[in-house]
């Protein structure tokens, strides 16, 4: 067995509202939506029109540049609207679901019997391809370039993250089939990273993949950190990543012959009355997921994903395609904290020892915080040094890379390892930043710029 890699740098932020291990099922939903902005960097081309009848698994849109990559409906029903915004930019596609879901039928196959091309074609036509991402650039993978390796993280360490052991219980068959499909698509290895304390029989029992063991605080569970410790990405190389929970979709496709995107979503956060798991479809309206389960008297922020790297969504919005977690926080616009910057703020968490949360952590390790979404300071030039370094466990100089991104210095970004990172890897840097710099946005813009310049 490969020895356990210990991640020393990082930060676990203990928030209130961890999902209890119980799952409820969302009943019938009255609308379902596909949001093109969920799929970062893709130019959508709609292939349906209002009134069309679709099955679960029927394409609603395709990637304009790579039409083979389809984006499919998770429900069967009637397309009620194709909403466009300014300059005819596609906002979303609305489908009114049928009472009972009819699935588009795909052949039931063993992916190991298929050629790599066969697997790719199947994933593209079933609309599961977009779940596979690539580095560099952290965008939907290009099916034409075989990756050096595929990396899958077997745990999530983000605040309030879903528990993979709980979700994967009893799903070992689909998991193995999904991983088998992945192994067909790379000439290299499929790496699965597991936490040292992994107790999941399903995860421990997987075959045909390289298992690596990690321990340590967040971001130990981020695939970017794991790649950096297992086999860092060099310039010119491509690797793919996929969320382990999305591998289940692939497994189901080959085992059951249909696109069933049902997932167990963790509904979490301090403002959720009963945080727990919900069995639902991506694209479901948030109202169906949280109605009656949140404290509505205060302004709330809904987040598709975790509080560090998730994306903001309005209460009347929809669950994102990638979200494995829905977080609800107090927005905080109604809070006016007098002289807060000089007070002890016992109920707020900070990595800085000018507050007492380090002491609280020693005395009451279980104390969970209820942060709101205020920035708690003004944006400044980078002043403090070494802050990012403490929460960034990769062999990359985070501050210098962020500076290169701020100055749009392409050569320097390359030299400092921009191809190895995704915005989410910098989420903790952004969290701890005294100067309140929007680090993830800067990294995202830098990756976009490089992608354009390189013509990839």
């Amino acid at each position, binding site marked *: 067995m490969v020895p356990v890699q210990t991640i020393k740098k990082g930060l676990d932020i203990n928030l209130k509202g961890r999902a209890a291990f119980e799952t409820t099922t969302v009943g019938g939903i009255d609308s379902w939506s596909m949001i093109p902005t969920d799929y970062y960097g893709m130019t959508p081309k709609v292939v349906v029109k209002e009134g069309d009848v679709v099955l679960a698994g029927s394409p609603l849109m395709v990637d304009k540049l790579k039409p083979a990559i389809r984006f499919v409906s998770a429900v069967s029903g009637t397309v009620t609207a194709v909403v466009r915004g300014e300059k005819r930019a596609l906002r979303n596609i609305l489908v009114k679901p049928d009472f009972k879901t009819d699935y588009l039928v795909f052949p039931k196959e063993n992916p190991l019997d298929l050629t790599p091309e066969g697997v790719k074609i199947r994933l593209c036509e079933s609309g599961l391809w977009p779940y596979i991402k690539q580095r560099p650039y952290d965008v939907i993978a290009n099916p034409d370039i075989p990756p050096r390796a595929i990396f899958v993280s077997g745990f999530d360490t983000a605040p309030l993250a879903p528990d993979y052991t709980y979700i994967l219980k009893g799903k070992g068959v689909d998991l193995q089939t999904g991983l088998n499909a992945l192994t067909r698509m790379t000439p*290299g290895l499929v790496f699965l990273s597991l936490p040292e304390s992994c107790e999941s029989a399903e995860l421990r029992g997987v075959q*045909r993949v390289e298992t690596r063991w990690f321990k340590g605080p967040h971001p130990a569970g981020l695939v970017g950190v794991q790649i950096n410790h297992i086999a860092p990405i*060099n310039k010119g190389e491509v690797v793919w990543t996929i969320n382990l929970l999305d591998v289940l979709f692939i497994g189901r496709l080959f085992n059951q012959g249909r696109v069933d995107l049902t997932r167990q979503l963790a509904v979490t956060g301090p403002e959720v009355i009963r945080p727990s798991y919900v069995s639902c479809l991506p694209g479901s309206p948030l109202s169906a997921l949280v109605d009656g389960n949140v404290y509505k008297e205060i302004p709330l922020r809904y987040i598709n994903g975790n509080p560090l790297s998730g994306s*903001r969504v309005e209460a009347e919005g929809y669950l994102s395609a990638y979200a494995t977690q829905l977080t609800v926080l107090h927005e905080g616009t109604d809070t006016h904290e007098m002289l807060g910057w000089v007070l002890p703020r016992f109920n707020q*968490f900070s990595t800085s020892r000018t507050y007492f949360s380090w002491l609280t952590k020693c005395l009451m390790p279980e104390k969970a915080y209820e942060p709101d979404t205020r*920035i708690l300071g003004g*944006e400044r*030039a980078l002043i403090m*040094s070494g802050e990012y370094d403490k929460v960034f466990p990769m062999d990359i100089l985070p501050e210098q890379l962020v500076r290169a991104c701020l100055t749009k210095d392409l050569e320097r970004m390359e030299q400092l390892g921009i191809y190895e990172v995704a915005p989410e890897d910098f989420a903790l840097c952004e969290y701890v930043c*005294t100067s309140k710099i929007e680090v993830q946005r800067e990294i995202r813009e830098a990756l976009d710029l490089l992608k354009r310049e390189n013509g990839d």
Partner: protein
Amino acid sequence: MKALRNLLDKLKPTFSEGGKLSALHSVFEGFEAFLFVSNQTSKSGVHIHDSIDSKRVMFWVILGLVPTLLFGMYNTGFQHYLAIGLFEQTSFWQVFGWGALSVLPYIVVSYVVGLGIEFIAAQIKKEEIQEGFLVTGLLIPLILPIGIPLWMVAVATAFSVIFAKEVFGGTGYNIFNVALITRAFLFFAYPTKMSGSNVWISLNEYFGFGNAVPAVDGFSGATPLGQAAVATGSSLHLTSPLGNPLSWWDMFLGLIPGSIGETSTLAILLGGIFLIATGVASWKIILSVFTGGAATILVFNVFATNAYMAVPVWEQLCLGGFAFGAVFMATDPVTSSRTETGKWIYGFLIGVLSMILRVLNPAYPEGMMLSILFMNIFAKLIDYYVVQHNINKRLKRAILSSNPVKTTLYE
């Protein structure tokens, strides 16, 4: 609290764009952010933020400066009453009060001039007011002799805030430590008011103003370093202004002439411990400055050709502005090295250079200011090599991996 909030909300339109006082927009915003934490919420990226912000960091540095400031005030009074021979009859509070009132005008001038320029600059740039000068404004008086005229402080502060900071882009972009540039400006522009034996102790009647009072017989206002720089002969006898020999305890406690805040190593260490414990200042830099300084003195001790070179480590480190520079100046995160390895080298070289300048160069009794400013330039060079090391490692890895060893294991 609510009334204050309502008042601010009522005043806001007046100061916003199009309002009557929109020219003071930045100032209003600055005060509002000072009184109430902004309720602005995150737009992109992380949805939760650490409670730390630059205001708190700067304020904590000021807290760290409080022991030195208070001690400096007392010492100013102490030296004054000692020099005029009235110390025995004067109460503690009178001594402290005299010193506090003498130091206060310097603090006021430094803040008014510096913050005034910052407010104007923020308004022109349409940015928020940055907090950097809150620290600089207090550092400036602490590194000046009590005898310097206030107008010189005003000129030097204006010079350094404009030319060492704002022209570079403001807080976070400056290359040189702003407070030290102020001191360097004064040092080279008005040398007679910054060195010698007449500027360190105020003999004036009223809190640094008015006519000079005659000093007691045998009085000399030279600092220990000033004495050492001009000393001849094979042994060094450092004395207090009244001619009594100085013990190590005097130097450590700081009841000696010198710049207002630099004399007490004890008070500086208290501040230093506070800053390290709260994580505001880099312990690596502080430790390496002291290590560099101590190592250099030890080398001098071994090859001592005069009495000054033979001064032991514990005395040398407590003299002059060494400790103050190490704790409060070298640790300025903006002008020091920003890489962790770089910080060790940066600090160590400050220690080495300051001792070389101090001991081997009779023209400058104190080397700390120049050595920190010098290393401010080199900080970027040190970082360059540390970063280059990381870059080279990545390049090497890329070359190695162009001959991949691993291929498919499973088929």
